[in-house]
């Protein structure tokens, strides 16, 4: 009876595993390389893996031979050698040493040397510079030179929370999709400069074969030269807090022409947005735009309902800071007021003035003062924010 149950259990487990195997889209190696570094890395990896496997199976083979033949139950009488004492035994013992000397420093060491030198050569022949700033938990991109010089934007996870919470079916690029991918021209050597605003992040796109840390207060660099147009996806890979699994990197590689077209369009879009700071906004418009900004940028810590996750992330609902004045009677910004916190940050709170434009900041502040049960009733105009820059 028990045996039968066990058999059924084992069978169903096996069938379950088999069904998983049947539809799986397994990947056994690095993804298709898209840059010279990734191609090189793949070759080095394949070569090293083959070497490692040969060593493994040869040694395993010797062991298995011994396990099957030198057994007590086969009546094999144990030898008594302790070695290495004779010259022959010393040579035998040093053989693996010598073999690995050759493998480490010639067979593996020489190609590895060339790969490292190539990987670290960020400056020679670089066509453009992209600055990447990591922060909890999004990436900011800034074009430092070339046609797109001056363009700067933040790239957030685009996967809706409902998909993460299993309330909606997951999309094809679940967790690997962003609202604004970074656009790069193909066949240009892009020098990528990295830094961070808070903790250490790692910018990683597997198909590029590069991963480099973004370190607060320091600049680090790497480079990519994408050979084929397409969308390339990656993730942060240094533990950076609760949102670590939710800050993807998406790069769209396009032709030179398309890159220029995109840069023109993007510049126009940014200009319109900053022009918005000069007009007077209605409270309704500020609140509705502010809600969008809030959900994209603030909700990850302060939560959609404004309740926060105390003590790390304080609630906005009923907050003394939010339900207090912003400007003193002379019209000066009060230190540690609502707007001061948003603009300049404090502790874990980032300084949003570097990340959001005047309209976004004015809207989100207005939204927060009039939501989650906060009833300040006032509003902040983008022009007031602009005046503080």
């Amino acid at each position, binding site marked *: 009876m028990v045996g039968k149950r066990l058999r059924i259990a084992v069978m169903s487990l096996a069938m379950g595993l088999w069904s998983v195997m049947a539809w799986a889209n397994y990947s056994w190696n690095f993804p298709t390389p898209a840059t010279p570094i990734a191609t090189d890395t793949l070759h080095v990896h394949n070569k090293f893996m083959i070497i490692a496997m040969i060593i493994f199976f040869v040694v395993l083979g010797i062991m298995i031979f011994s396990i099957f033949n*030198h057994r007590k139950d086969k009546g094999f009488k144990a030898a008594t050698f302790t070695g290495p004492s004779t010259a022959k035994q010393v040579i035998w013992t040093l053989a693996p040493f010598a073999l690995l000397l050759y493998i480490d420093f010639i067979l*593996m060491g020489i190609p590895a040397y060339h790969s490292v030198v190539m990987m670290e050569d960020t400056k020679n022949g670089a066509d453009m510079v992209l600055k990447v700033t990591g922060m909890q938990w999004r990436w900011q991109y800034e074009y430092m030179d070339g046609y797109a010089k001056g363009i700067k934007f933040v790239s957030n996870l685009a996967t809706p929370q409902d998909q993460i919470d299993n309330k909606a079916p997951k999309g094809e690029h679940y967790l690997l999709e962003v609202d604004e991918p970074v656009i790069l021209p193909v066949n240009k050597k892009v020098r990528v400069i990295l830094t961070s605003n808070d903790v250490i992040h790692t910018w990683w796109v597997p198909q590029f074969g590069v991963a480099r840390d973004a370190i607060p207060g320091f600049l680090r660099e790497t480079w990519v030269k994408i050979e084929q147009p397409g969308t390339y996806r990656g993730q942060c890979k240094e533990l950076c807090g609760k949102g670590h699994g939710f800050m993807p990197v998406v790069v769209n590689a396009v032709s030179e022409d398309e890159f220029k077209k995109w840069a023109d369009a993007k510049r126009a879009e940014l200009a319109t947005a900053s022009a918005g700071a000069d007009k007077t906004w209605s409270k309704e418009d500020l609140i509705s735009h502010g809600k969008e900004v809030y959900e994209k940028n603030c909700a990850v810590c302060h939560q959609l309902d404004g309740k926060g996750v105390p003590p790390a992330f304080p609630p906005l609902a009923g907050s003394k800071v939010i339900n207090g004045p912003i400007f003193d009677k002379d019209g000066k910004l009060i230190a540690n007021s609502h707007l001061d916190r948003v603009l300049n940050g404090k502790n874990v709170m980032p300084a949003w003035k570097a990340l959001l434009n005047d309209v976004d900041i004015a809207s989100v502040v207005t939204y927060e003062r009039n939501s989650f049960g906060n009833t300040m009733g006032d509003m902040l105009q983008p022009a007031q924010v602009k005046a503080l820059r």
Partner: protein
Amino acid sequence: MSTATTTATHDHSHHDHHAPSGVMRWLTTTNHKDIGTMYLTFALVMFLVGGTMILGVRAELFKPGLQLMKPEFFNQLIGVHALVMIFAALMPAATGFANWMLPLQLGAPDMALPRLNNWGFWLLPPAAILLTAPFTLALFGIGDGAVATGWTLYAPLSVQGGIGVDFAIFSVHLLGISSVLGSINIIVTIFNMRAPGMTLFKMPLFAWGWLITAFLLIATIPVLAGAVTMLLTDRHFGTHFFDAAGGGDPILFQHLFWFFGHPEVYILLLPVWGFIPHILSAFSRKPVYGYKAQVYSFWAIGILSVVVWAHHFFTVGMPVPALLYFMYSTMSISLPLAVLFFCWIATMWKGSMSFETPMLFATGWIILFGIGGLTGLVLADVAADAQYHHSYFVVAHFHYTLFAGGIMGIMAGVYFWLPKMTGYMYSEKLGKLHFWMTAIAFNMTFIPQFFLGLAGMPRRIPDYALQFAEFNMISSIAAFILGLSQLILVYNIVSCVRGKGEKAKDNPWEGAQGLEWTLPSPPPYHSFTEQPVVK
């Protein structure tokens, strides 16, 4: 000599009459076997605690989406799992064996510094409580849970973290003090308490492995203690060791941490490398091959282990010469390791082997640790490391070295010495079942993780993209089988301790050599009241 013997005998009877009983016996004991037993029991309990934590993690990773826990809690589980497994399971298990076996193997009555020994152990439970208390405190609304930075405590994330980090810092301090005390005791015991005639080069390899481990601990634990203290002052007293804004450098923490962290790997492995050759020799009925070659390899690895640390963070960006130096020095660790592998296999070669549970574990250990070692060699390559680093490839790699190379090695030791320690034989059938379940489930858990890493799945993420789903599901199922299989180990140990099963002979293993097998099973309360003479 004869005076010493008389005194020892007198002590023995004295102790039997007046030893405190109950809890006080364990709190005040200075006996190396009692303390060894406490270390081993503590290690087993914490092994199960750490295992339960990671089963929570594997359950969450069973399929994409957040099912069971918030990312904050997930991050706490992974970090505390690692700290518990390394500091509270693997290290105390090795120290437990050192306490139990070194006096027996060296022909000593006890460890050299028995009171220090007692203190060394009793620092551990408070450390474990400190480490895990924030979980409980969070339930009562105090703080936001345990340390959520991963076991590496990287600044600035750890500067930013909640009270869990402070608890972890003090826990690490206590664990560190305990390790240093234990190390001092072991070094003094090995240098001073050996039986007449037992020269250093006649010691069992276990003593050699532990001697080098002890030196490594004394050399590197203070660096870790310094690093976490700097972290503490950065957190609370306004220093800027790891803050660029004040002239510090976050990467300094990584250098300090891994200056300890890399030798730590060998601290965990050297004791195992010490006793595995003796197990291989016992069940091959053939002497250890290349004893001196192994000792020299231990030294070589011990020395190399303190000069390769930066290979743990190649992606932070270093000058090319530094990258090349750390790459080549890391690769060179494979040279002495190759000699060790050769000696292990040569010990089995042309032996008359039988495969009782300890031998099964030892054999499986060579193969699986081999996979860990070879993937480590591949990881040394800086360019490809950009892909492997902090991906599941690394997770799989270090579980092959630390679970297979560490814990499965310890299990070989448990089955080898359990009859000696308890006086009863475990069930060979259940022991073998435990081995096969562990070995198969372990590979099913971690082989998929190699492929996950290659495909681009970062470690320490609570949720993942859909292309990683199938391998994660297999890995999670196997992890639960692996976890549940360990209950067989618990059953085997408990039934030996309770005296179920056959009585063990003084030497239950046909081919086992060494002084510990000359004593009765279980050995008397004071091991060698009369010093044996080694020829």
